[in-house]
């Protein structure tokens, strides 16, 4: 990641100059936020709408941010809430082309056959069952294909800790899928 700033640096930028600090925050996190939303909305158009709502909310809430979690974790929670609110309100009849599932069709897992859509649903349920930190690590590593170094910067964690979290997450998800 180019020009990655730590949370402390970003917050200092914001404190010195609100607008400039916010701009750097948007540049740093926009792609991560985008893919999180798109995984739920399944199309670019809706993702764009939700993304705007997310960053407007971030702008309004930033003065109240207490630093009890990493900035990315905080922004992720806002993203999650906004995306789900949007999906609840959105018209179910969509004329937009939806993205294909994450997984290819006709998967054979532990002797069972699944379509790509089915496996995606099961995977998301499995991820939701994890503790929050493991959820973030797993999504960023498995779904977004980020390197441990990049994830460590986002979540303010050590790489060793990340690897341990990811390993535990994988084992839990395996068990979830087997028993589903």
């Amino acid at each position, binding site marked *: 990641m180019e020009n990655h700033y730590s949370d402390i640096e970003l917050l200092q930028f914001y404190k010195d100059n609100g*607008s400039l600090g916010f*701009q750097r925050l*948007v*540049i740093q996190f*926009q*792609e991560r936020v*985008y*893919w999180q939303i*798109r995984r739920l909305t399944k199309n*670019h158009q809706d993702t*764009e709408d939700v*993304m*705007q709502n997310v*960053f*407007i909310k971030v*702008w309004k809430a930033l003065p109240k941010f207490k630093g009890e979690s990493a900035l990315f974790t905080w922004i992720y929670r806002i993203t999650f809430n906004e995306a789900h609110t949007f999906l609840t309100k959105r018209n179910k009849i969509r004329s937009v082309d939806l*993205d*294909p*599932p*994450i*997984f*290819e069709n006709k*998967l054979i*897992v*532990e002797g069972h056959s699944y379509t*790509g859509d089915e*496996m995606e649903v099961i995977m998301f349920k499995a991820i939701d069952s994890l503790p929050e930190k493991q959820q973030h690590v797993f999504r960023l590593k*498995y779904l977004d294909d980020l390197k441990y170094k990049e994830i460590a910067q986002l979540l303010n964690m*050590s*790489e*060793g800790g990340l*690897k*341990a979290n990811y*390993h535990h997450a*994988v*084992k839990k*998800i*395996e068990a979830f*899928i087997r028993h589903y």
Partner: protein
Amino acid sequence: MSKEDNILNKLKKTEKVSVPNDYFDTFFSNLKLNENDTSFIETLPKNNKPEVSTEFFETFLTEILTKLDKPKKGKIISLKSILISVASIAAVVSLLFLMTNLFQTDRIVEIEYNTEEYLAFVDLDESDYIDFIIENNISIDDEIEELDEELLYELYSELDTYYYEL
């Protein structure tokens, strides 16, 4: 106790063994895992991510800043709707007032009075009125049907008093 303290104090400890600085940070990554120990999850074939133009992320920031800079539009209040509401409420209140007044026309006691007599006692107070009745020997029996019981009682009491005083 003090004996034990003395013993402990006398014991000389050697320096704690040192551990390399980043040992625990790199511990996990240095673990030699079984090569076959790869999760089936990591072998699941995935579709390619949808493509997003790089322009989108370049222009997104500008769009957001433009939205945040835009002043909020003032609300336009429709006078028409307010006038209609006020007029409706006024109409209902007037109607209710009218209806309650219409039903309050009872209890008008119609007493037929001789015009002269009426004119004669219209300015009288109560005691004068009683005196007038007695002096003129007016029978109030015909008129008593509509009169209040209390007033009747008072009239008769006055009459009685008058007769007792005679």
